């Protein structure tokens, strides 16, 4: 007879010395873990609830301007620096980490409407309603003494031009920059006059934005409700599309530079493929008032919008509804928003003269995270993803607390949309078959496309 029974000696299964780590043994047999699916589901439910509990997106408000903030610019070479310009002509350079002003750029007589920084981060371009374009040297960032006074800088050059400016943007690779006013002007760092000008239509250009992939490509929007595409290598504009309402801002997707998203006056954002402007790729709805500014995350997976309805929202690049809404009682109309260079923060500038710093992920844990914590977060993400379609989890994840004004306005918009839909359906029912067609939302707001 051959025989064996299980016999374990404690020495093999426990640590030798008290300084050693405890020994851990694994047996992945599903039989040892009954009801594992129920356990996993409960964990997913708890993870979703914890997300809501830990959602504290507001980090800081940066106070200093004495008028509404009209525009902002990221410094591409410095993660923690951001420029902001206000309606009274004040331009400030902020240190986000220390949450204070490092430097001021005085000179503008009217509102600053356009701010942009060259890709190497050395030259700041500003323009405004006083019809001037000013170039500034960006001070080299060093260790910031928290008690040092705010520095003041003189512009290196001032170019006076014929009309007021509304927007500015710097080329990603090269030394041209564009301004928008009565027309789109292309400037060089060293020339006091524009090197090129594009005119199509007669109305004011509201925003200009260079393509991050192709440095010579440029998109602009004008107050005649048009969106234009230009190529610097050609004399005339390339394409034009007219929508029913005007576009306030444009942002190119940095990861898919053929696509761009526009912030529209009707409260929707539209993602377009620049090769196919007849139909939007996606319509992002949720804002209840005009969207004033938009900026893509460097990952290209989501973008942030600021709106006249006093809220900042984050949308996925391919989703129709917001992922997150940020609001506070004190925040007024949001005129400009930016994603931080690493995609983990959002900065908004609003009518109440403050810059606000938000986390891009509302429930993200700040600071150094231990490896075990990190693993736990990853596990939570995975199970949330796995069970996201289940009604209870979906309901909790989707729930957003809205301020009363936005809640009511959203409800009203919903009712209006419903009644429009109903009307359309009835119209269809009472007309000869085929005579009334419903255009999809992705095409509905587009008036025409001009080559």
């Amino acid at each position, binding site marked *: 007879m051959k025989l064996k029974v299980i016999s374990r000696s404690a020495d093999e299964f426990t640590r030798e010395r008290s300084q050693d780590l405890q020994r851990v043994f*694994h047996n992945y047999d*599903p039989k040892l873990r009954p009801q594992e699916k129920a356990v996993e589901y409960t964990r997913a439910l708890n993870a979703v609830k914890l997300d809501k509990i830990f959602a504290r997106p507001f980090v800081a408000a940066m106070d200093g301007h004495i008028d509404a903030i009209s525009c902002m610019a990221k410094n591409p070479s410095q993660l923690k620096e951001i420029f902001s310009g206000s309606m009274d002509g004040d331009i400030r350079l902020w240190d986000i980490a220390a949450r204070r002003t490092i430097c001021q750029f005085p000179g503008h007589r009217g509102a600053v409407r356009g701010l942009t920084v060259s890709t190497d981060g050395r030259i700041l371009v500003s323009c405004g309603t006083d019809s001037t374009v000013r170039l500034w040297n960006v001070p080299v960032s060093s260790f910031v003494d928290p008690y040092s006074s705010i520095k003041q800088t003189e512009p290196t050059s001032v170019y006076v031009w014929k009309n007021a400016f509304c927007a500015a943007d710097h080329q990603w690779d090269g030394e041209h920059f564009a301004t928008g006013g009565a027309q789109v002007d292309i400037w060089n760092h060293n020339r006091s006059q524009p090197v090129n000008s594009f005119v199509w239509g007669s109305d004011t250009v509201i925003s200009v934005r260079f393509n991050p992939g192709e440095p010579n490509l440029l998109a602009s929007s004008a107050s005649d409700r048009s969106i234009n595409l230009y190529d610097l290598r050609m004399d005339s504009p390339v394409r034009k599309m007219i929508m029913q309402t005007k576009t306030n801002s444009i942002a190119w997707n940095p990861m898919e530079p053929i696509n761009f998203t526009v912030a529209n006056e009707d409260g929707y954002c539209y993602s377009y493929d620049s090769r196919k402007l007849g139909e939007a790729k996606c319509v992002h709805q949720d804002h209840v008032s005009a969207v004033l500014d938009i900026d893509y995350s460097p990952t290209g997976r989501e973008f942030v919008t600021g709106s006249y309805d006093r809220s900042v929202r984050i949308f996925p690049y391919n989703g129709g509804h917001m992922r997150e809404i940020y609001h506070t009682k004190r925040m007024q109309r949001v005129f400009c928003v930016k994603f931080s260079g690493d995609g983990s923060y959002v900065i908004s500038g609003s009518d109440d003269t403050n810059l606000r710093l938000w986390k891009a992920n509302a429930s993200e844990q700040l600071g150094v995270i231990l490896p075990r914590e990190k693993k736990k977060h990853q596990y939570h993400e995975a199970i949330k993803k796995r069970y996201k379609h289940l009604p209870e989890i979906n309901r909790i994840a989707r729930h957003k607390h809205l301020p009363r004004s936005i809640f009511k306005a959203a409800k009203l918009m919903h009712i209006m949309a419903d009644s429009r839909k109903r009307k359309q359906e009835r119209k269809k029912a009472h007309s000869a*078959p085929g005579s009334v067609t419903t255009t999809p939302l992705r095409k509905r707001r587009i008036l025409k496309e001009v080559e």
Partner: protein
Amino acid sequence: MEETHENDALPNNRPSTEQDITDELELRSKKYLRGEGADLKGLKDKKLRSQIVAREKLYGQTAIAAAKTEKWIMPSEAGFIVPEGIEKTDTIKQEAITREVDISSLRNQYDITLPEFGPYTLDFTSSGRYMALGGRKGHLAIVDMMNLSLIRDFQVRETVRDVVFLHNELFFAAAQKKYSYIYSREGTELHCLKEHGSVLRLQFLKNHFLLASTNNYGMLLYQDVTMGAIVGKYRTGLGRTNVMQVNPYNAVVSLGHSAGTVTMWKPTSSSHLVKMLCHQGPVTALAFHSNGHIMATAGVDKKIKLWDLRKYEAFQTLPGYANTLEFSQKGLLACGTNSYLQVLRDVSGTQNYSRYMTHSMAKGYQIGKLAFRPYEDVLCIGHSMGYSSILIPGAGEPNFDSWVANPFETPKQRSQKEIKALLDKLPPETIMLDPSKIGTVKHTTKEKLTKKEREEEMEAAIEAVKSKKLKKKTKGRSKAGKIMPKKQDAIANAKRPFLEQKIAEEKNESRKKQKTNEGVDLPKSLQRFAHKKPSS
């Protein structure tokens, strides 16, 4: 069931070629895949298909990794007996085993004689490290089985019917004469559970933190031990019973009744989920295999039956009495009666249990409770003269998981695990017959019934109403003239939903017909007037 035997069927000698190695890994990884993969047939969405394919691939990889761990990294191997020549395993005596095993295993063979407070019942913690002992006449004790040291024993001076550990060894519940009590490991009385009444059997549902009990009045009661709330209190209506067992696979509580039926219960419904007639005569014992598919029952009709719970059919009936039944982690079934016990085993994995080992106690000992010690090849026997422990090779799972149940747990690990377990506490709603349904899609669309089926259904409903007896009432209210309209009303009420449905369907159909036939050129709003058009 199948899984265990696939493992047994694995080739023991080293595989020679790479093909053999991959085959073996595939066989081993089957249980880690947890069933079939997603069915991609008829899935037209290309994006979804590619996502599912990617995920299935990932599942396959993890299963292979787990299988590799099982093959190479597991520290211990399962116990076994290989008889030589004409020897049979069921004739091997404990004394013969004593001669063969190592010294440390010898410590697991003993008889403890405690004649005064007998018969004893016992319970193990999930790691098998601690044992709670309850003597009928009021003796309670906690024993550390690792070094066989008594942690605490005390007298409660009244009848003790059952003991059960809560989530760890720090707490245990004892069913005593009038009430049940929760004690700490040191023997301090923490709670008196008056709501339960005088309890006959206690069971603890580990994942849900529920203490289930059945009492003198045939009531089944669930109490949440974390918050103290009574989750469910149900009258079984089938008389008092002391046969109760939790199915470890789905946490459904089963009761064996004196009429030979077994009922299964969950805390969120006041009626039983399943009622099956198992024996002619009272059910004496009940046990569940850890995979949840096999139930063993014993009755006074001198039968031990093994049931397949997927089909609710008995697949094997063995002759014999049993006061107590118990499945081991590896699927051995121990049956005890009087002073004799036998252990059955499913040798070939074909659901055919045969005698594996036997053991006879000293004459006059009455076996009250059998319990396999988890993660060990040890069977503990609570009987009228104390308790004993014998060796059953191949009974226990050889490899424990430190995060599930660790016999070598330190106090710090225990406290951390307690917190983790509380965070993962399952709500009582998750108890259901098929727990794999959680997190899946519920199909709500009913199959359309045929006309005949519908008529049959209606007739059945009418019959049910007709056969219902009305109460006999006084003062002329039970006159034929009063009863007749009442009955007719009830019948009309029963008919109504069926007729309404029929009318609605006919309407729908006629509308559809119109749509397809005539009103093609008309706007939708005018289509309903289409049939008034003169036929041309």
